[in-house]
């Protein structure tokens, strides 16, 4: 049981977890606020059937430390809301697998949300989606190194894309 729980650290984060652990002070390896260490740790997966303990999930572990209302400032958040400069990186790291799937198929809500956070206007988003599909392999390789590298690679790709270059986006 214990072992299964230990194994239940969720996959979404595994590829980026090294980055999270080193996150503090290194802008290239994570959102820079230590969010990943909190996220989903000890999540009891459904494979551990039968009598599980009460949920130790976002509800318990992350909820009150990071997203607590009027809880003051934490690494990533202020009174439970992401700092503006952490939004894109946090989203990219917390949703990497879903973003990768959306990039491969050239559309999807995670990709649309990422584009919106990056400040890409709705009219330019189809071009942005097509670009991510085109560059899927290199973007995912960047994302596997770190979420910050993914966002950086996306920004560079936008800047060099004739369809998107004129878009002014907020990093």
């Amino acid at each position: 049981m214990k072992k299964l729980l230990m194994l239940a650290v969720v996959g979404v984060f595994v590829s980026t977890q090294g980055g999270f652990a080193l996150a503090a002070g290194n802008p290239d390896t994570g959102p820079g606020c230590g969010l990943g260490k909190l996220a989903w740790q000890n999540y009891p997966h459904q494979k551990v059937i039968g009598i599980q303990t009460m949920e130790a999930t976002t509800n318990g572990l992350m909820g009150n430390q990071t997203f607590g209302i009027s809880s003051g400032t934490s690494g990533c958040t202020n009174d439970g809301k992401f700092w503006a400069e952490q939004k894109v990186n946090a989203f990219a790291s917390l949703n990497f697998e879903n973003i990768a799937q959306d990039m491969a198929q050239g559309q999807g809500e995670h990709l649309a949300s990422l584009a919106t956070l990056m400040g890409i206007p709705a009219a330019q988003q189809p071009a942005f989606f097509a670009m991510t599909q085109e560059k899927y392999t290199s973007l995912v390789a960047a994302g596997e190194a770190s979420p910050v590298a993914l966002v950086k690679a996306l920004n560079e790709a936008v800047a060099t894309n004739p369809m998107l270059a004129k878009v002014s986006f907020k990093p």
Partner: protein
Amino acid sequence: MGFRLHQLEPHGLFRFLLFLLFFSCLAFLHPIPSGASPVTDPLYLNELMGRAEAMHLVEEREWHVLLHYRRTLFGGTESMQDDPGFFMAPGGKTDPQAELAATLSMFFSDELVGRSKQPAQCAFVARYYWLNEKLRFDATRLPPQPCERFTRWFDEFNAAAITVIFPSGFMNNPSSMFGHTFLRVDGKEQTPQTRILAYTINYAAQLPPDAGVEYAIKGIFGAYPGYFSTIPYYLKVQEYRDIDNRDIWEYRLSLTAPQVRRLLMHTWELGNAYFDYFFFGENCAYHILSLLEAAEPSIRLLDRFPLYTIPIDTVRLVRESGLVGEVVSRPSRSTLVRRKRTSMSIDERVWFDRLIRNPANLQSEGFRALQPDRQAFVLETASDYLLQHSAVGGEEGAPFRDKNRTILRARSELKVTPRDLPIEPYVKQPDLGHETGRIGVGAGWRNHRAFEEINIRAAYHDLLDPEPGFTPDAQIEIMSIALRHYHHQSQARIEKFSLINILSLAPMDSLSKLPSWKVNVGMQTIRYNSCTLCSNGVANVGLGAAAETALFKREVYFAFAEAEANYSRAYEERHRIGGGGTVGMLADMTDRWKLMLSGSYLRYVLGDQSDDIRWFAGSRYTLSQNWALRLEYNHRDRDNDVLLSVQAFF
């Protein structure tokens, strides 16, 4: 009293004299609460208190909603809030009048209060807003605080609407069996495509990180504090849709802008404090209702849940209150995979099954011969399947992640638009299901002896109950009792009692191999040796497997290995302990008619050494959403029991 001259306003001497004049006569009418900090304009405070009293504000519903006051059994008033920092008066938890006076008094102060360390006007922004609305504070005499933290927080939502989110029940975690509810704050600029960026308002117990079995018990009895938090919706979607594989239902509320504002203001106040979390009563669903009451105090929601709160009942109540607009579903990852796979042609399905095992099959000519859009659909579905399984995490999930990379690389090379396939969850819209309480009246024979029966169940659903809205093949019965009156030597008795009776069937197929399981603790009536109607305590646990077919409509077969302990005066040494097995099937004959058959063999090796063969056949016919007919036959040894009953859900 705590007034000190030097803390009055610069031109305070004149006021101070006036104050002395007035205070001498008004002081006992509106006593300043002890412990409150210095008030800059006591005269104005007194005036406000006088007006508040004349207007009977303390009796108004808003005040009781914002402070979470409830009538106690003994006629008093008590707030459900358990954080002392939530109250401005020392006795504020039980004294609405003192709390009102202290709150007004604290509005004059910029002292930081509560867990969140803000001035009272900001920490209790909904109270301030409401009292200001009623008393029309003079901004020169009671200057408003800027409340930058609240404003930043509030603006960040950019709220347009509130949506109630209901992830359906999840059998493999006791704390999730009944589902969960939380609110989503929909931003003005979000579209359905970017809705996952919304923040949620979630209420949950805070557990120690190393929670074990004892915490489940403590959670029932309120040993943990519950807090509100604003977790981004994309994390909740991951948690429920991707990891737990629960279908999510979203009920968009038709609240006005002022109602949304009030709700958010009160949410901010609750960030200051905690309630003791009670799993069955004051749980997530209960306190989400309390936020809706803050949005619109004229609707009464909490009164309907005096004892226990089942999330879906609260959703139903909110819908009946006329607050719900659009309802949409967000199918779980496993639902996506199943529905997509079902919609495939046979050759697509063959390739899907091959690809998820070995992505190298991508290179085979047969797959390449499919139309690009069909290839894309197979690859997308394969990716969904691999994502579902990589959610296991760690080393176990790694092979699935690697396969997914290969699949997605191939998908990215196909420049076709994904097939637009509407996906329907397996759980029908939950608020349209039957109510969760049940009462049944019936009659029958037991070994040629006629009887009448009345049975009642507190919650929630059994395998034969009408299925729409409930997790399929899952049974949770809590606190169920059956009373019988037997004819011939008229005899009334408690025929059956279930403390808890849970059964989860998980049909296995090529996509899923989860086990089925069951737990039952209760009492039933048996015939044994010379005793014809004997009470028999039962504790039974079982682990098994299930499979399904669609020969007729839908059939589920199951088999369990199980262990059982019995306690009864009918046995030698009053007990017996043993093990055995059960096999059975469930069959949907039509949308309304369902059958269940099961047979068990148990051999008891400890205590009264004996064995048991049991048969059960049951049939349910749905009359309407909340009415059903049942015919049940139970056989054990020389004991035959037939019951025909009509059941109403309430």
